[in-house]
């Protein structure tokens, strides 16, 4: 049985500002879950804290809007506990790269079987406009009166470097394209990271939307998505930002590894019952 995008909607009204890019992301999520053939009761959405992290409240699945920075470990636990469920983590750039940076590194490395959508507005929206890891260097924000001193991170470059097996970039303004990327991410076997440029009209200005549209470029024809180096090159092009699937490889996932471990654990002909395990503590007379 399949479900329509509408069946993934809840009747809770988003708290987002009029014009926020996250509305379009939400729209894409509804469509992508349907397109990927997910069932609401067999889908788990986990987020951290932020404007973007409010998203699970607006999607009819098992949803958890958790703690700032912790979406990935929670999604990992959920996936290992319920491997048959589709598990998707969502959140903001600050949530995923500042306080959540370490989990991003290790979830990528372990190739956890989940999709992760990062709504990247280059700012801390919910706390009202402080610089974050993707805020361009030099930008003045509420917390950087004299300009942001820190070099900004390209989330896709970081994901590739950390070992994510599927890495793509999208733009919330392009609902069709984003929906397609989300669908592929959900279907990917392993950790699929999608960086979605999603304007914050309130703290990055009404212009951000146009600016992003202007600088995005589709993936160049003939790009070899299996090449780390080629993918990396598409992550630092100065002016432009490439959207599409930058990197895609097939390698064992965390679940694959755990299945293999279970095989070995049972295989060694050893104790696989409570009683047998206990016997090991009984000294022979």
């Amino acid at each position: 049985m399949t479900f329509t995008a509408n069946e993934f909607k809840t009747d809770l009204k988003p708290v987002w500002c009029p014009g926020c890019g996250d509305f379009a992301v939400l729209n894409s999520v509804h469509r992508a879950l349907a397109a990927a053939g997910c069932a609401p009761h067999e889908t788990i959405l986990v987020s951290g804290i932020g404007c973007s992290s409010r998203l699970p409240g607006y999607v009819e699945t098992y949803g958890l809007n958790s703690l700032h920075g912790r979406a990935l470990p929670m999604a990992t636990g959920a996936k290992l506990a319920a491997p048959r469920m589709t598990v998707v983590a969502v959140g903001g750039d600050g949530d995923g790269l500042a306080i959540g940076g370490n989990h991003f590194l290790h979830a990528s490395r372990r190739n956890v079987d989940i999709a992760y959508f990062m709504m990247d507005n280059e700012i801390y929206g919910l706390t009202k406009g402080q610089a974050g890891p993707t805020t361009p260097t030099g930008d003045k924000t509420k917390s950087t009166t004299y300009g942001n001193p820190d070099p900004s991170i390209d989330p896709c470059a970081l994901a590739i470097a950390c070992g994510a097996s599927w890495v793509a970039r999208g733009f919330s303004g392009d609902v069709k394209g984003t929906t397609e990327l989300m669908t592929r991410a959900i279907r990917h076997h392993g950790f699929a990271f999608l960086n979605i440029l999603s304007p914050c009209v309130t703290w990055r200005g009404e212009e951000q939307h146009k600016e992003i549209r202007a600088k995005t470029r589709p993936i160049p024809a003939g790009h070899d998505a299996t090449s780390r180096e080629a993918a990396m090159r598409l992550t630092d092009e100065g002016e432009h930002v490439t959207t599409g699937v930058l990197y895609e490889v097939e390698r064992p996932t965390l679940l694959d590894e755990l299945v293999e471990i279970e095989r070995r654990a049972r295989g060694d002909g050893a104790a696989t019952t409570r009683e047998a395990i206990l016997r090991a503590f009984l000294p022979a007379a």
Partner: protein
Amino acid sequence: MSKDVTFSIVGSGGDGAVVAGDLAAMACAAVGLHVIKTEAYGPQIRGGESSSTVRISPVPIAAQGDASEALIVFKFSDFARFRSEMPLAEGCIVLHEPDDPPPPELASYRCVPVPFAQLAKDAGAPGAKNIVALGLLAAMFNLPVDSIRTAMRKRFRKRDAAVIDANFRALDIGSAFPSPRVPREGQGEGRPRLLMSGNEATAFAALHAGCSFFAGYPITPSTEILQLLGEWLPKIGGSCLQTEDELAAIGAVVGASFAGSKSMTATSGPGLSLMSEMLGLSSIAEIPSVVVNVQRGGPSTGIPTKSEQSDLFHAVYGGHGDMPRVVLAPCDVEDAFHTTVDAFNIAEEFQLPVIVLSDQLIAQRRETIDAASLVHDVVQRRVPHDPDQSYQRYATTDDGVSPMTVPGIAGGMYQTNGLEHDEQGRPSSMFITHERMNAKRHRKLEAIAKKYPLFRRFGVNDPEVGILCWGSSAGPVAEAIEAMNTKGAGVAAFVPRILAPLPLRELQAFIDSCARIVIIELSYEQQFHRYLRSLIALPRDTRVHARSGGKSLSAIEVIEATAVLEEVMA
């Protein structure tokens, strides 16, 4: 003639003091004797000083033993660092190398030179000083030599026959060597007993309770739990994840629990501190979680290898906001099994975080347990399997518990969060919702207090002195009470095994039945005393014996603190 004996073996590097202790413990457990074995180490990561203390008794014992009747020292320079924490019984027999004379302060004991190294060489097993020593101990205390051999065979199974034979010779030479004989009563009932550490009992309890997911990050003295469940869970179809840190560990646990698995993590103080925020989410989103915290010396990194009872404040109060949680504390190794199963039962039934406060002494000592005692009912989460339209995740109920659907159940979908929320889980910043939901979440504690008034009580009725203590202090207290009461004193103890919510009715009744109250704990700040005071009225003349951890509580210390014998004698 004494029923039970305690002996210590001290060495360093390759002396094998700890191995000798293990073999003695296994051999005695195998014939059904009761055994408690503790170890201590110097700061050196490896090759430093080490000591093993073994207590053996034909009747049940509750503590590691106050003082050693025999001490084997391969080098007195190694003994120095343990001296202040290893009391010797009056007339203790001290066996040492002839060329390493005992320091003056040991002159008062029965020092017997034994050429351990030479005897080992004679046996053709130069490395087997420790086995020679074991032979001596066997002869002195009349330990079951055959089962020592069995234990050796098991332990050395990877070595080749010649080596094993040489070790057997070393054992015989040791037993044959002239040494004082210490008659000991009782040989045990023959039926072998389990020999387990608290961490092992805890890990096994998780399996028993139906835990199918564990996530953790190594930390002394809890790491064995991670290691064992990493080995066991895959065997029974569960999974174990070693995470990048404790934030991820507790995050994965709460995530897995949200997805429907009984989940647990284990850590020690520093890790528990890092988990504070996520426990708040487990509490407000009402997602069951079990955290085993094995206490060590604090604050900060403190003394990682030694026991203390100073994480109580953090366990019962830690975390911002009004955050209902449950805290349990085992009294001994067997109890580590029962409290851990109870932790899962309470977490699953009442949908909140449950902390098990174990401590290094329980977690890492080895103790004999009767296999038959490891039974405990298991409770399941209230899951509505075909929820209808009206399903509300946080529906108001009398006991505050709302049935919880899990992913996979059609029509059970809900969206939750760590924000204050209404019955459907929808975020709300209204005072009325906040007050209503605080009340709902806290009602669960009342229900738990009624259903799980977990405590131990021992000693006389209507005691003259009532002792209040918790955790591993219960052992020495129990033995002290037996000693005092046999001398005619009237002492009893109340040991809560659930610290939050406290079994107040039972505790109050106990306090009312006592002429005097003495509180005993290993926390410099008197955390247990101050916690009790915050909830119950203590008599004005309540005595408190509180000190830092790092040295285990002894029965004698308890007797002195109770100061009741003087009166009896007077």
